[in-house]
């Protein structure tokens, strides 16, 4: 595919005489970059081939083949279920995660700022932290019944504590020098927050948000296996229960992986914003 592109541009002589050597150099450079970018895909392709061969040599058929999985995905598309389930899962994550972020971040920053409050709260936070969000499933169902609300609640629970802890840490680790410098230049409390505190905590917060979104995506699948009757997690248990459609099970897993990956890519692009990037590159 790329080859045809190359020969295509070679066949435009008017261009070539203008910046012949420079253009060709750039092209070669682009080509090697393209190969580097291609490497992960080659690796994935290799794995798929290995998967295919391994499954075919196994008479017991312990896994669907890659083609059966693709077939499963197409089946879902045909029944208008793929989009519906993806949207259902993303909807729950969006709500649970956003609510958690809206509450946990300001609270955590305030707690971190007032060190005494942090000291008083620390023990309870450390006790709550090791409790898996999944342990809340029975309580979620008791409070909210089977449905969206339960799933949203579970994602909220799973995101709230990590975000709270990240925010507390971010606020605590703002060096005094920055705050003092801000005060020295005559900033009042509101300006200190906007011009010193906010930019200083941002990089840590973004990392926390990214990791927590990953957690939320894990939790939604688990929550949907039990607490609701739609979404990608539901797809997986349902495909098994209703007729051992393992092609659909693996299809669901693949889609969960892909979407999780895309969410992470999205969050990572925030880390690239110049004025947030300082803490990742400094010393």
């Amino acid at each position: 595919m790329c080859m045809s592109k190359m020969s295509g541009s070679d066949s435009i002589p008017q261009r070539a005489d203008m910046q012949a050597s420079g253009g060709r150099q750039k092209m070669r450079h682009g080509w090697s970059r393209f190969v580097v970018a291609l490497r992960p895909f080659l690796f994935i392709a290799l794995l798929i081939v290995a998967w295919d061969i391994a499954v075919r040599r196994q008479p017991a058929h312990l896994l669907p083949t890659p083609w059966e999985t693709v077939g499963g995905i197409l089946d879902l598309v045909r029944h208008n279920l793929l989009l519906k389930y993806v949207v259902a899962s993303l909807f729950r994550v969006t709500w649970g995660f956003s609510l958690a972020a809206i509450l946990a971040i300001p609270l955590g920053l305030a707690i971190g700022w007032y060190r005494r409050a942090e000291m008083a709260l620390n023990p309870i936070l450390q006790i709550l932290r090791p409790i898996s969000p999944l342990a809340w499933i029975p309580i979620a169902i008791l409070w909210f019944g089977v449905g969206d609300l339960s799933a949203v609640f579970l994602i909220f629970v799973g995101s709230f504590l990590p975000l709270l802890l990240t925010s507390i840490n971010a606020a605590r680790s703002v060096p005094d020098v920055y705050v003092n410098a801000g005060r020295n230049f005559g900033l009042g409390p509101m300006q200190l927050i906007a011009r010193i505190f906010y930019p200083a905590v941002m990089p840590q917060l973004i990392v926390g948000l990214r990791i927590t979104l990953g957690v939320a995506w894990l939790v939604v699948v688990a929550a949907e296996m039990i607490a609701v009757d739609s979404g990608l997690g539901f797809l997986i248990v349902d495909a098994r229960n209703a007729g051992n459609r393992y092609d659909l099970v693996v299809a669901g897993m693949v889609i969960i992986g892909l979407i999780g990956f895309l969410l992470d890519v999205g969050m990572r692009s925030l880390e690239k914003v110049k004025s947030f990037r300082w803490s990742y590159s400094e010393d």
Partner: protein
Amino acid sequence: MVTKEVEAAPGLKTKLSVDNVSMTYKRDGKLTHVLENVNLEVSDGEFVCLLGPSGCGKTTLLNTMAGFLTPTSGTIQVNGEAVRGPDPRRIFVFQERGVFPWLTVEGNIGFGLSKLTKPEREQRIAHYVKMVGLQGFEKSYPAELSGGMKQRLEVARALAVNPDMLFLDEPFGALDSITRLVMRSELLRIWQAERKTIIFVTHDIDEAVQLADRVVVMSARPGTIQQIVPIDIAHPRDISSQHYLELRDGIFKQIGLAHQV
């Protein structure tokens, strides 16, 4: 101590006066006496170096002068008014890196200039970028600058708000010896051009004698003022002259160091 030495040079207005300042830190119920009965007068436009061993309370004294700390007892006045907190007319350049890593060189220098109109601000920024030799790095972030450039940036940020006093806490301590020399002469040049009152903390005797109008020698903790040495040599100073060496060796003796290795 002879009282005469505490007073500001005659004929000049007193800018800063420190009267009977003592400072005691209390941490975990433990008291640390850091400053004891410090008295000092600094006149307008004067360059004073605070010199003393590590941990003697130089940073603490500077922090009380700048209004970041309230002394346990005693008073500090600037222009005859008691200091009640930090003030943009008196900028502190921190011992640790104090430039804002989330702002570019321009953003840092312009940090204290939000009250100016945009053209005024840009002009001021350009002026100080040039003064500290950071042309071409206006859009760079501190992470892309060397240690010496960051330090110059912080000095520029301080100068840009046109303060009448500068507190510099070992600003060149982390720099290599060549950069340090360059920075010293740049600071002198700026001081001579703009006539700020400068309080400069260092534990480098040569640095103090090269820069200051007066060197304030402090004792080990609890810090007291041991001696104030006027350096009556005009700038630029010949650092191999007899008089320079006499003054320097006098301070070495005062601190209790034989000038031999």
